[in-house]
């Protein structure tokens, strides 16, 4: 072996030193870093933010650099909590709406009334304005709205002469009619978050139920509303591909585009990207693919689907809260915000009422081509057909443990056992109720007797 000992020891020292220096963020010299976390991972969105808001911010505040981190949705909660535990959260971040109350209750958030007024309190759409309004102050502002719904093959449904379903029974009839020739009617995403939290929330909302009793916070997982929904879901399962629970949300969009299913259960405007990429060329238009709102259950009035829209928030532990607010003012500046929303058209719909019908906004080519999708969202918002992700009723923004309930997977287990395992809905619901009551007691939220 020709390595001399000196070289070996030197090599070790260098490697260890290099490894040690891999510390982020670099905090040498006069540069101060503003840490901004968000969940829009598309490269073009990241680029837009960099070229518009960040560029101007760095011009206005020399001595500051903005460090944006695009995190996956699933990672966000864990990373955030880990950073809070480590005492160094980002200065500004996206939050899942059902997390915000949890953090507010722990006194971790800074109010942002001044920012809201600066960007136009009266212009912000009612669907998102008061979501983070606690005890008289605003603690968050939605970055953009994206409604979700079924994405259907309108041509197939119309060929069968069936109207859009309004009740569970209508939906089951439609599903039966569309399952033929190797094609399934519908497919639900297999991720726990969707099938075990987002969709059950929608079922409850559309069937007159709610996650918890508003006064005592007692969970209501075995309420009649939930049991009806589980029975409906169990029947719907017959019209879904056998392996759906092992596949993901994005797989359903690919399946829709390639004709393997007639309806994607969960779809936002992101589906358009898949259609443009994978659907047969002569079918890439709203005549073939359209959004469809959800049916309601026997005890509900209208079907509800989720409104995707994380909110910005600033922490009490943030290093540079004032600069965070200044950054947000630039973020929402009309010309920059427009570009941001155009980076993923329709999926990122502006929160400002004035912009929803603004010709400049509507002139985007994708929005022009898929205009009916945009219109569905606007009319749906007007008709109150959407609730934020995970909410079973509007007041759920005040429930401080939805994140833990989601994380425990209790609801997901129940749904999987009923839909895929074919078990008895009432039995599984009772089991889930018991587990949920135990969990909430362990977490210290028991107010019922």
């Amino acid at each position, binding site marked *: 072996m020709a390595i001399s000992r000196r070289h070996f020891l030197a090599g070790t020292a260098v490697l260890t030193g290099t490894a040690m220096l891999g510390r982020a963020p670099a905090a040498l010299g006069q540069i101060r870093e503003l840490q901004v976390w968000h969940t829009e991972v598309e490269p073009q969105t990241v680029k837009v933010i960099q070229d518009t808001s960040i560029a101007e911010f760095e011009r206005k505040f020399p001595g500051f650099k903005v460090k944006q981190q695009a995190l996956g949705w699933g990672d966000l909660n864990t990373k955030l909590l880990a950073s809070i535990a480590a005492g160094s959260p980002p200065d500004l971040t996206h939050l899942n709406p059902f997390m915000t109350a949890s953090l507010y209750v722990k006194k971790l958030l800074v109010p942002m009334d001044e920012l809201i007024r600066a960007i136009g309190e009266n212009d912000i759409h009612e669907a998102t304005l008061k979501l983070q309004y606690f005890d008289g102050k605003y603690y968050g502002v939605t970055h953009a709205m994206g409604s979700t719904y079924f994405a259907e093959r309108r041509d197939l449904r119309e060929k069968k002469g069936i109207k859009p379903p309004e009740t569970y029974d209508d939906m089951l009839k439609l599903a039966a009619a569309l399952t033929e020739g190797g094609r399934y009617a519908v497919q639900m995403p297999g*991720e726990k978050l969707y099938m075990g939290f987002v969709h059950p929330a929608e079922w409850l909302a559309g069937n007159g139920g709610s996650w918890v009793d508003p006064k005592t916070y007692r969970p209501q997982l075995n309420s009649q509303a939930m049991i009806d929904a589980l029975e409906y879901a169990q029947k719907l399962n017959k019209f879904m591909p056998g392996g759906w629970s092992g596949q993901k949300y994005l797989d359903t969009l690919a399946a829709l585009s390639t004709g393997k299913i007639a309806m994607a259960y969960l779809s936002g405007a992101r589906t358009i990207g898949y259609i443009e990429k994978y659907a047969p060329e002569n079918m890439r238009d709203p005549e073939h693919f359209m959004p469809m709102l959800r049916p309601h259950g026997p005890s509900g009035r209208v079907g509800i689907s989720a409104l995707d829209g994380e909110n910005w928030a600033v922490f009490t532990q943030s290093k540079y809260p004032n600069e965070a607010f200044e950054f947000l003012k630039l973020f929402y500046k009309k010309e920059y915000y427009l570009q941001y929303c155009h980076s993923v058209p329709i999926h990122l719909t502006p929160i400002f009422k004035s912009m929803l019908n603004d010709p400049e906004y509507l002139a985007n080519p994708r929005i022009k081509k898929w205009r009916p999708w945009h219109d569905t969202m606007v009319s749906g918002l007007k008709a109150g057909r959407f609730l934020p992700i995970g909410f079973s009723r509007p007041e759920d923004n005040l429930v401080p443990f939805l994140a833990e309930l989601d994380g*425990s997977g209790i609801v997901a287990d129940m749904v999987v056992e009923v839909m895929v395992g074919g078990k008895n809905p009432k039995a599984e619901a009772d089991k889930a109720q018991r587990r949920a009551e135990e*969990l909430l007691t362990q977490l210290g939220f028991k107010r019922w007797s």
Partner: protein
Amino acid sequence: MRKQALTGWLLLAPSLLLLGGLVVFPILYNAWLSLFDKHSFLPAQAFVGLKNYRYFAGDEEFWNSVYYGTVYSGATIVLQLAVGVPAALLLNEMFRGRDFLRGVVLFPYLIPTIVAVILWKWLLNDSYGLVNHLLLAAGVVSAPVAWLGKDFIMWSLIVTSVWQFFPFVVVTYLARLQTIPPELYEAARVDGAGAWRRFVHVTLPQTRSVLFVIVLLRSIWMFTKFDTVWLMAGEGGVSRYIRTLPVYAYARSFTYLQAGMGAALAVIMFVMLIVATAAYFRVFRREEALS
């Protein structure tokens, strides 16, 4: 003598420091943490003694995870042996390309778990996967099988794990095979023993101790395996059907956000392993095999 001892301890010191700080301390801290009700990331905590343990004794999810974990480790160990031992026997023979094959057989072991999982999920994909295509083409099944759905996910996990770790069995067993004196086989051949009897009467006795080690180590590692299992179903609803004990411990800490309970599960796992190992040693009485 004293100076010798001092130098000895000095040389050993860095190891002890690292092991102590990075292994012993976390283990002790785990045990201590398990006596608390603590939120994973926020400071709130309260001493609760053995409450967490009592809770798990009656927790259906806990017993489910023990069941899944046992099924998983049992099946994978048996299959790893069933594939690895014959492979080692094969690679002990002389033939052209043997050395090359010895290298190739180790490939599955070298790749990161995430790559192995992604690869097998792609092979087992019910719409585009090669496995279903081959099964359909051969007429073995009439419709694509949902390998990653509820009914088969455990099997898919087992197949992936066996593929990933059987090379360990191969190399370990082969190394021992290579040290068996050929005279023993000659003597058996002279006595008229055929291949199977040679295996039973020469090979097996000679390799008992290495088999003992292989089963012991693989059992420990498959029982406590986290990444393969967790990555296989990830955040899907079907993850429930492969929720082994390590995955449940992780969930309690990082998604339920109950660090004390996660720690209790870790301690339970450790105790289970100690007990099982002690029993294993007692049954096979092979302490010298490990020195």
